[in-house]
């Protein structure tokens, strides 16, 4: 079959099924589109970023989930993916990147350090990026394997599929309140308390 025949053949097929239409729920359609074309804003600061790169490369291939288009500009990104530890010096940077991302937007916290400070319970390290920006999915691990990150991404897909356009509050900007924080100070202190082995690291107190 030559190219000449293709034209007439394909138009035959189109005309045989036109007009194209289908019925569905708007929420389903929108969430299907959003969850299957999440453009990540990679915020890689440490070894988790290496695992993230492995996830993006051919063996694990996040193109399967419509995420191969890394958005190094926050203004064209859907999901902020913090891969690695976040020092206080970078906290205003990730906050500004988050502020610059348009709605709808989500945040994945990849690895122990981004989620809780990890082993770095020190003066220079943010104890969980959820004290700076709201987080949707936490991926545990040090660093997480690509499978772990993919599982987290699929959990985010599931979360997105459960959203509805009727609830506009889902798209509210979570801005800093009058105290300059995203949560009450007492709650943040509680979240950032030492846990596990690090409660014994009190030599200089």
């Amino acid at each position: 079959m030559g190219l000449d025949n293709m034209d007439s053949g394909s138009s035959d097929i189109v005309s045989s099924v036109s007009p194209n239409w289908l019925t569905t729920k708007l929420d389903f359609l929108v969430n299907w589109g959003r969850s299957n074309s999440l453009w990540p804003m990679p915020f890689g600061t440490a070894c988790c970023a290496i695992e993230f790169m492995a996830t993006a490369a051919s063996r694990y291939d996040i193109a399967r989930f419509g995420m191969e288009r890394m958005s190094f500009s926050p203004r064209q990104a859907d999901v902020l993916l913090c891969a690695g530890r976040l020092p206080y010096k970078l906290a205003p940077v990730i906050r500004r990147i988050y502020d610059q991302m348009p709605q709808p937007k989500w945040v994945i916290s990849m690895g122990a350090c981004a989620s809780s400070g990890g082993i770095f319970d020190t003066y220079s390290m943010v104890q969980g990026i959820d004290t700076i920006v709201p987080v949707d999915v936490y991926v545990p691990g040090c660093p997480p394997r690509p499978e772990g990150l993919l599982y987290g991404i699929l959990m985010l897909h599931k979360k997105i599929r459960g959203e509805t356009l009727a609830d506009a509050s889902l798209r509210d900007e979570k801005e800093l309140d009058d105290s300059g924080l995203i949560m009450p100070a007492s709650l943040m202190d509680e979240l950032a308390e030492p846990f596990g082995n690090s409660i014994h690291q009190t030599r200089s107190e």
Partner: protein
Amino acid sequence: MNQSVDALRARFGEAIQDHHVSCGDTYVYVDADKVYEILNWLKEEPGQEYDYLVDVTAVEYRDPEPPLEVVYELFSHPRKVPLRLKAKLEKEGDLEIDSVVSIWHGADWLEREVFDMFGIKFRNHPDLRRILMWETYDEGYPLRKDFPLRGRFSRSEQVRRVLKGNPETNYSVEEISIAKDNTSIPDDMRQRLLRGESGNIPDSASEADRV
């Protein structure tokens, strides 16, 4: 033992305190007041020629009595010889010592790091600012033994202060002045570097308003 020790004693006498050899490395303790003179001599004197300053760092010991030590790690490329000098600074004192930037330009950032982490001030340093921590950081000097591991402020206060600052404060005056002179960078970037997005570099954390 490194034969520079005898040469140092012959040249500077009392300014050279004790010395010892450990694991093949020669340690020489010198008067903090004479550091500039001694290091300059070690670099310029024929037969010494320590032309490379490997590192400047400092030590504070766990016990409260021993003084702080500023450590100079030297290496002579022509002679392939290392030498380690230490100068003691009493904790109760001013914690000041002469800068060696005019001898080795590479000491610039090394001394800034020592200042940032230990609070030791280097006299005649051209640009003594914090280098690892941001410039408005005011919890103290993290590697001092009296500094709590998790910082002086509560976590919420640390977050509040850091979010109040704006990222442009991390540009140095030099980087901003490059923006003024360089015409090859895009205009909007030059403007942003010149101003910062919210104005000039604040003098202190209280003036650093978030955008």
